């Protein structure tokens, strides 16, 4: 029998109700029909702007929230179909690293206690000596020293704190780490150290990382696969380097063009980004009001995620764009 993928996300949607006091109640759809597969031992990037649903996706994969519809299969088992007890047992297999290394560590606890904390919820809670050994080994694995365990978070820099947060996430030896903007708050020189650490953990320990960020360059540098999200939907997916080298969705193209680059000096030679008119996102493509390639069909028919063919550089890639073939031809002729 084939081993199921580590995480299989199927038709996941999440609505949030808001308003009610002054305005009428209305429902915001944060995530719409997202499906993707995260394979073992890979770094899977999710990129998109704020409000695109990427953090909602992270919360659902971590089972911190329940979907309105759809399912998350972790090693083939539905996280929302199991009992609370069973879910608690499963939690050791997935851990999270947050954005803010200053807010996510309790300032009144020693680093040793912070890193050991997830062990306390395990069924077979390890003894004191074993906990100490595990913490020491984990601190070393993330490039800190075992005697750092006795110190408090304030003694550490931002990069070191993020290493502590990663050590805490890894102490239960999880199969999956969800990193939500885990390097965004770090200085450049330190950011590179933490990114290298994630790649080392993938290669040496086989850790799988769901890496959520708005920074394309970071994903391009570390991720094996990437999913691009826009307004709650997955609009493109594929091997990270191929996606950024030759985007198959106009939104990915827009993101790549907007990203500042140390080798591009002065104002880029592009038309100013237009202020987009609001549109009804209930029908058609939700990107059409910002899309330079939109046609009439885009306003009436929703583009579904599809493959463009079996050629070597298109295999394994998907896009949700009616105009992808046109985009592809334009990219090729450029």
């Amino acid at each position, binding site marked *: 029998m084939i081993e199921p993928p580590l995480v299989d996300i199927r038709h996941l949607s999440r609505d949030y109700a808001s308003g009610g006091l002054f305005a009428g109640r209305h429902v915001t759809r944060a995530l719409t029909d997202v499906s993707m597969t995260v394979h073992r031992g890979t770094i899977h990037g999710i990129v998109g*702007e704020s409000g695109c649903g990427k953090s909602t996706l992270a919360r659902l994969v971590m089972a911190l929230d329940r979907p309105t519809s759809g399912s998350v299969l972790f090693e083939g088992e539905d996280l929302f179909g199991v009992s609370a007890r069973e879910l608690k047992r499963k939690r050791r297999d997935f851990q999270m690293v947050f954005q803010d290394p200053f807010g996510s560590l309790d300032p009144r606890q020693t680093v040793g206690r912070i890193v050991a904390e997830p062990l306390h919820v395990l069924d077979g809670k390890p003894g004191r000596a074993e906990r100490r050994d595990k913490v020491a080994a984990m601190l070393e694995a993330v490039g800190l020293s075992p005697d750092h365990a006795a110190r408090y978070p304030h003694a550490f820099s931002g990069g070191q704190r993020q290493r502590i947060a990663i050590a805490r996430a890894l102490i239960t030896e999880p199969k999956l780490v969800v990193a939500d903007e885990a390097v965004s708050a770090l200085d450049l020189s330190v950011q590179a150290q933490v990114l290298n650490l994630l790649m080392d953990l993938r290669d040496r320990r086989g850790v799988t990382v769901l890496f959520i960020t708005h920074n394309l360059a970071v994903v391009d540098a570390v991720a094996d696969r990437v999913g691009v999200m826009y307004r709650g939907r997955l609009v493109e997916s594929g091997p990270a380097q191929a996606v*950024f080298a030759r985007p198959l969705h106009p939104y990915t193209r827009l993101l790549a063009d907007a990203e*500042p680059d140390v080798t591009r000096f002065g104002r880029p030679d592009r038309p100013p980004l237009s202020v987009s008119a609001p549109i009804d996102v209930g029908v058609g493509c939700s990107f059409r009001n910002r899309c330079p390639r939109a046609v009439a069909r885009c306003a009436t028919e929703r583009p579904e995620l599809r493959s463009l063919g079996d050629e070597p550089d298109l295999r394994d890639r998907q896009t949700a764009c009616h105009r992808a073939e046109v985009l592809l031809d334009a990219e090729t002729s450029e």
Partner: protein
Amino acid sequence: MTQPLLRIENLAISIDRPDGARQPIVTDISLTLEAGETLGIVGESGSGKSLLALAVMGLLPPVARPTGRILLEGRDLLAMDDETLCSVRGRRVGLIFQEPLTALNPAMTVGDQIAEGMVIQDGLSWRAARREAITLLDRVRMPEAARLSRSYPHALSGGQRQRVGIAIALAMKPALMIADEPTTALDVTVQAEVLDILDDLTRDAGMALILVSHDLGVIARMCARTLVLYAGRRLEEGLTRDVLTMPLNPYTRGLLRAVPRRQPQDGRLQTIPGTVPSFAALPPGCVFSDRCPERIDACHAAEPRWTYPVPGRGVRCIRAPGEAMP
């Protein structure tokens, strides 16, 4: 001889520590900026870049002890009494903050926040100032400026709030704009729009811009000249293109190598080992010597002088070309 818009001479800033001792933070900063010029200041956390920006604004906290001179249009900000300073800042210098939400008053409409300065400083009526506020919102390309001027900050998106922040800074028609990480909290597409707006303002209005950022791509996009700060010292200065394509200081080279970019399969990013030292624990000699891959023994002996190996190009490193090797 014409006067530059801003001339900083031998600026040093120290902070009074709780134990009574003085902790030097910013050391030996000198620079000039002409009208319409754009200067990027690159520095990681702990480089002293924000303290430098506050000093130029005349907004140093009471514990800070500056020495040297900050001449704005020939007048020394450090020698002014509070009242004179108050009319200079705000009028001549505008400031854009990193976090537009915390910088705005949540209990006041954005239109009134833009108008406030014009009422207090220019003596405009509220009616006229509010009209002017809508024009300013238009100028920063805010859609539906008239309607949104009556809304409160919480109702706006991050990009819209930053436009309001720029409009507030613009209301006084400043000669110099200081932007401290203005787009760090924004999405890339919104960032591109905000940078375009700032770019238009320096081109069309002749406004000078000091842009503080840790993002080298943003600096490359926006600034003609660049100053690299580390541990309160300038380590390198020059035309942005020169600094980023032919860096003279190993720290600048290290930063450029650490920029995330596409790697060969299974490749690792290059890093600068260690972390930025605290001001109380700087290494002897060159402040970067403990992390520098190119250090030699002489680097620990004394702090390198600031030199000009090429006209318009400054560097602090004994190993930079043009410097005598020991």
